[in-house]
């Protein structure tokens, strides 16, 4: 079983990202379980979403305490919340950031990847300059760094699950797939 935790801010689409990634895995024949942090969400406040993926039906129905990988949608969360909490050694931390992965070298024991999902989103007219929608782009980067799910499945899932700008969202994911940097 693979467990993934998303960190974002309320309104950024972390919950949708976890659902889109779930459907991408589902298209590749996996069983999936995607859920938000069960709480009261407020726009701009730190939020989390979760995803379990397995080859067998998933019977475990509790929160994810020890994720295998972390996806951070908002760079300002780094330092503001402990994104590494419970993260298994050698897990990926994929951060939406224009900085190179080496910037986050203080996160020892983990593998770091960065992708400038904000610039990719703006370039593809997703959201606005002040409030870009980065949740689809970052999934393309996750496909590349994790090697767990194909970019075509991500693009297909994006087309199915996003309410609008399906082409732009899918294109953003493919660009992030190309542009993601690993340490």
């Amino acid at each position, binding site marked *: 079983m693979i467990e993934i935790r998303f960190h974002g801010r309320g309104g950024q689409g972390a919950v949708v990202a976890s*659902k889109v990634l779930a459907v991408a895995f589902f298209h590749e024949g996996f069983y*999936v379980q995607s859920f938000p942090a069960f709480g009261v969400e407020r726009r701009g406040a730190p939020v989390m979403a979760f995803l379990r993926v397995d080859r067998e039906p*998933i019977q475990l129905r509790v929160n994810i305490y020890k994720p295998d990988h972390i996806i951070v949608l908002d760079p300002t969360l780094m330092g503001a919340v402990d994104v590494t909490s419970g993260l298994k050694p050698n897990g990926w931390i994929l951060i939406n950031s224009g900085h190179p992965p080496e910037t986050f070298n203080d996160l020892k024991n983990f593998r770091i990847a960065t992708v400038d999902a904000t610039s990719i989103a703006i370039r593809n007219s997703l959201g606005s300059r002040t409030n870009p929608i980065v949740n689809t782009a970052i999934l393309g980067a996750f496909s590349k760094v994790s090697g767990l799910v194909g970019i075509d499945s991500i693009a297909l899932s994006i087309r199915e699950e996003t309410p609008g700008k399906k082409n732009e969202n899918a294109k953003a994911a493919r660009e992030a797939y190309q542009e993601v940097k690993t340490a």
Partner: protein
Amino acid sequence: MKRVITGNQAVAYGVILSRVDVISAYPITPQTTIVEELSELIASGRLKTRFLKVESEHSAMAALIGASTGGVRTFTATSSHGLAYMHEMLHWASGARLPIVLVNVNRALGAPWNIWGDQSDSLSQRDTGWIQLYCENNQEVLDTIVQAYRIAERVKLPVMVVLDAFVLSHTSEPVEVPSMEEVDSFLPPFCPDYPIDTQEPRAYSVITTPEYFLEFRYKVQKAMEEVPEVSKKVDDEFRSRFGRGYGAIERYGKEEAEVVLVTSGTVTSTSRMVIRKLNEEGWSVAGLKIKRFRPFPSEEIYRAIKGAKKLAVIDRNLSAGVGGIFAQELRAALYPKEERLPVFGFVSGLGGRDITPELIEEAIQYTVEHPRPEEEILWLGLKK
């Protein structure tokens, strides 16, 4: 077609596929997205169901009592305080023998304020004359709604379909969504015996004197007694058509086990993992899922626990002064039997706290190690 959907979306699909005529509901977390989904479909014209907007849950149930009496298929959904607010109308619906289907997304009642999963809401309605069916996953949620209409309309009693807050309601997982044609062939249109007919006026549920009231309640009880057989037939037919069935209870794990762990809702799902692991390690333990809480499946349980030495129950609910409600019902069901097994009543996970594999294992281990419970209520995961 298999789709990745939340428990609340599975509810909406179940309602759409059951060709419900009238929905009336008032939003409350965590039920809200059920009503959102259905009302959006109705507003956009894609679902030809009448949605009655009301100012409260009490009115929602009252509206459905009217609609159901009129002879159409009805649905509502609620949670927690909303269900409590419906309380007197719940009695009315069963007394009037109306096959209304209600989905309750389990949530704790305040105070203190809490929006998370806890069965105290539905279980505190156990004496209202409603059939109660608890679900373990999103597939079971959809399937149970379709089955619920068949059962309700056959025995003329309302059905409450229950799912856990967030752990199902807001969690997406793959669900096989049957086609309209498949469900149509399983669930015929609702044909009430005595719908409102202006050509043939009648009075409904008028004042009934002591001379007859006892007999009315006797008939409700008799209808409840039909439920085990009717629901088994419905479930068997569902299984033969759709390849999925649930039963009133389900026993899993080691066949001749000394300890049987009794659970309901999503705790069962996690317990399956724990029991599989413990069986591999050689533990003599099995699991028992209770799906149908009303009428309580005593006979089915007797058969399923044959040979067991001890029962452990995990209740995500509390009747203060007594303990967990499933444990209490189980003890009452076992009392007439010669061999009365000790029932270890664990209470855990109230107000949405996780019932983790570690806690489930702790409950099983305690039961294995003790001949009898040291306390009437065994608190699991309590901070001291």
